[in-house]
């Protein structure tokens, strides 16, 4: 039986989460729902690892849903690029879930918790569905599942502002999804197919077709809204700032990352990447926006007094790094972008978990409330410093690896300006991290501050696991670099 199921792992990667979500609704008990969500996430991580191993061994895996061969049916198509994203998403989920057990009840009202886990599982299924599929319409369907569930998860916080933030995200996200589907519709109109491999053989011959050009524009704008590329990032800061901490940690490290992957998939696999280099200045446009995001995001982050908002603006800057890497359309640039996607997910996930621990004890994430916190919550604040080093890009951290490769890629292209921007943005990161560190370590606690102790162990351990991983992959990056180089070659090499 086990052997029979192993060939169905691509389907199970998504379907297990889909099956588990309604089960949470039936069980109606927060503990049981948490248990299901955690076990399923771990199982999905195991599946993703097995799939990644198989792709490394034997190359691309395809799976025909309903046994209908593509392009008539929908196919799952797993190569290095998306196997890597599948592992990332499930890995983050697996670390966040144990953390959520203590964190979620502190921030969401008890009668709603079991439905929250249902939403989380749907979100996970949506993100995995986007990453795994080889069909542009199927991608849209799972984009909808993941988007709807993230709006709901963000709005669940006790902070009323979360509702407005989620509503704003809903409007922007819906526009993004609509733009994406308009693009898909136009592609279908001129090619008659929705399958990515099929499109990849047809679209590159049609690049002077005006409908295809407009389709590309709509796809890019739609996905850029989802990945919060400057200037389409306006939904992100508040959404991440007011969402429950575990949700911020999970979404910040997975949601935008999967959208970055989807954009890369559309640009490089479907459109063959040539659109970037040849025509209508798409490459220049992406570079300019990425640079603006890197400087703008970091600069605005400095002025934030809500640390979760600060981290959110920093995310916008970090997304700029990834897009800069992708827009180079070279193996080393793409590798840098993808490896940063992974490394940033670990660092930012860890940092948002730190803020969850702070909120758990302090019920606030304002810088001024965190004064003198290092004495009272030494382990938590040490994790913030460690994660902050990663964002700055100090050697030994994962952030250093990605920035190092990004700078090399820029030098290879002779883009000296980009190198300067990377350095300036890193300096800005020093400032915004320092503001928090200064408050926590060098200021006395405010008078009459309540006695608080360290966050519970069940939150500290996952937090340090996340931060620890970002150091592990900073010290020994061969594994991540090997995989992302392979993924970059796959994306750039077209369909094998």
């Amino acid at each position, binding site marked *: 039986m086990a052997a029979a199921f192993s060939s169905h792992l691509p389907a199970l990667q998504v*379907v297990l989460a889909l099956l588990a979500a309604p089960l949470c609704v*039936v069980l109606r008990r927060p503990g049981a729902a948490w248990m299901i969500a955690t076990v399923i996430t771990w199982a999905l991580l195991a599946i993703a690892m097995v799939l990644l191993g198989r792709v490394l061994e034997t190359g691309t895996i395809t799976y025909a*849903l*309903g046994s209908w061969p593509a392009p008539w*049916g929908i196919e799952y198509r797993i190569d290095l690029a998306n196997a890597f994203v599948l592992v990332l998403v499930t890995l983050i989920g697996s670390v966040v879930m144990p953390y959520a057990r203590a964190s979620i009840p502190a921030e969401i009202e008890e009668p709603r918790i079991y439905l929250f886990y249902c939403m989380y599982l749907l979100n996970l299924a949506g993100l995995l569905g986007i990453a795994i599929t080889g069909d542009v319409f199927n991608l849209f*369907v*799972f984009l909808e599942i993941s988007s709807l569930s993230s709006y709901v998860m963000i709005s669940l916080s006790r902070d009323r502002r979360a509702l407005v933030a989620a509503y704003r995200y809903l409007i922007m996200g819906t526009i993004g999804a609509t733009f994406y589907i308009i693009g898909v519709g136009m592609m279908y109109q*001129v090619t008659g197919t929705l399958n990515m491999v099929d499109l990849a053989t047809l679209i590159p011959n049609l690049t002077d077709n*005006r409908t295809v050009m407009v389709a590309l524009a*709509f796809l890019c704008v739609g996905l850029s809204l989802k990945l919060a590329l400057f200037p389409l990032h306006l939904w992100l800061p508040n959404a991440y700032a007011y969402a429950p901490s575990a949700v911020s940690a999970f979404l910040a490290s997975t949601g935008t990352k999967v959208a970055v992957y989807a954009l890369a998939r559309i640009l490089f696999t479907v459109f063959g990447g040539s659109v970037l280099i040849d025509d209508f200045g798409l490459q220049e446009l992406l570079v300019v926006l990425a640079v603006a995001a890197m400087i703008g995001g970091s600069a605005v982050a400095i002025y934030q007094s809500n640390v979760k908002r600060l981290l959110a603006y920093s995310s916008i800057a970090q997304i700029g790094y990834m897009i800069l890497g992708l827009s180079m359309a070279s193996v080393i640039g793409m590798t840098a972008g993808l490896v940063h996607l992974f490394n940033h997910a670990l660092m930012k996930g860890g940092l948002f978990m730190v803020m969850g621990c702070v909120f758990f004890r302090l019920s606030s994430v304002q810088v001024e409330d965190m004064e003198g916190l290092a004495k009272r919550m030494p382990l938590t604040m040490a994790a913030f410093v460690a994660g902050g080093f990663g964002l700055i890009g100090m050697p030994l951290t994962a952030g250093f690896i990605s920035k190092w490769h990004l700078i090399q890629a820029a030098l290879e292209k002779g883009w000296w300006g980009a190198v300067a921007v990377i350095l300036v943005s890193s300096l800005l990161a020093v400032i915004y991290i320092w503001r928090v560190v200064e408050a926590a370590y060098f200021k006395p606690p405010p008078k009459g501050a309540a006695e608080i102790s360290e966050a519970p162990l069940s939150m500290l351990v996952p937090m340090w696991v996340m931060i620890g991983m970002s150091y592990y992959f900073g010290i020994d990056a061969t594994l991540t670099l090997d995989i992302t180089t392979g993924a970059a070659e796959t994306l750039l090499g077209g369909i094998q």
Partner: protein
Amino acid sequence: MGFMAVIGFAVARLRNLFAVVMLTGLFSLTAAVLYVILDAVDVAFTEAAVGAGISTVLMLGTLALTSSEERVEKSGGSKWALVLVVVTGCVLVYGTLDMPPFGDPTAAIHHHVAPYYLEKSGQEIGLPNVVTSVLASYRGYDTLGEVFVIFTAAIGVLLIIGRPQFGRRRSHRMLVGELHESMRTNVILRVGSKLLIPVILLFALYVQWHGDFGPGGGFQAGVIFASGFILYALIFDIDTARTMIPARTTRLFLVFGVLLYTGVGVAGLFLGGNFLDYSVLAANPVSGQHLGILLVEFGVGLTVAAAMISIFFTFAHQEH
């Protein structure tokens, strides 16, 4: 098309949200007519049931909870927004320039995937309605995804506003209040609806089980079935309607529908096929496909109906 554009302008200009909701319903109805002209009857059916029917009712429900007048705020952004919208519109029109002309038999869509469906679905699936074959079998996984989208939406509404213990107990009685009083005493409405509701429910069942042969299927049937109930709740008594289908029952159906659909897919796995492979469900692949499609469409219908009813009651029951 011109009519749709006029309605679009009216929706943007009008400040009375009640009228806006009615116009969006009209917009959907016009769109549905357009789809019929384009020979896409299944799409037209869905548009009419969802766009003109249920979403209008839900938007009315929202108005009942909030207010029906829009607050106009002067903001400098609107000029730029207009420019942005016009640019987007121009880009869209520009994109149509290289589209194949309407009804062009040489267009790519008629030559790539579609001919296979038209030629082979007869042997492989054996249903007269090719649209159902494509939706429920060839692209059945997308449909499963769509059902999960609806499931997510329903659970989301339950989560956000269906807060039994924590709801702010403001009076939201417009829907079940004033409006309701006038409806309850209106004999024509009462008698008319009593005549109509059984027919609506029966029609829903017909659409559900006849989707294999004619236009229709689980989505439309679910929506029609739900609108029958909602009509009853609007005109008679919301509490009686609720006792007929208690929250637990809708929730159960909501879950059961998606589990049925996914379960059929998983059954395919156990019987040696791929996920959602219906051919292995019976000895003969064609009857397996029939069985599979019937079951998944039933799952769709259950979840959609339960989702619509539960969303409506969550809105209407804010204060109970």
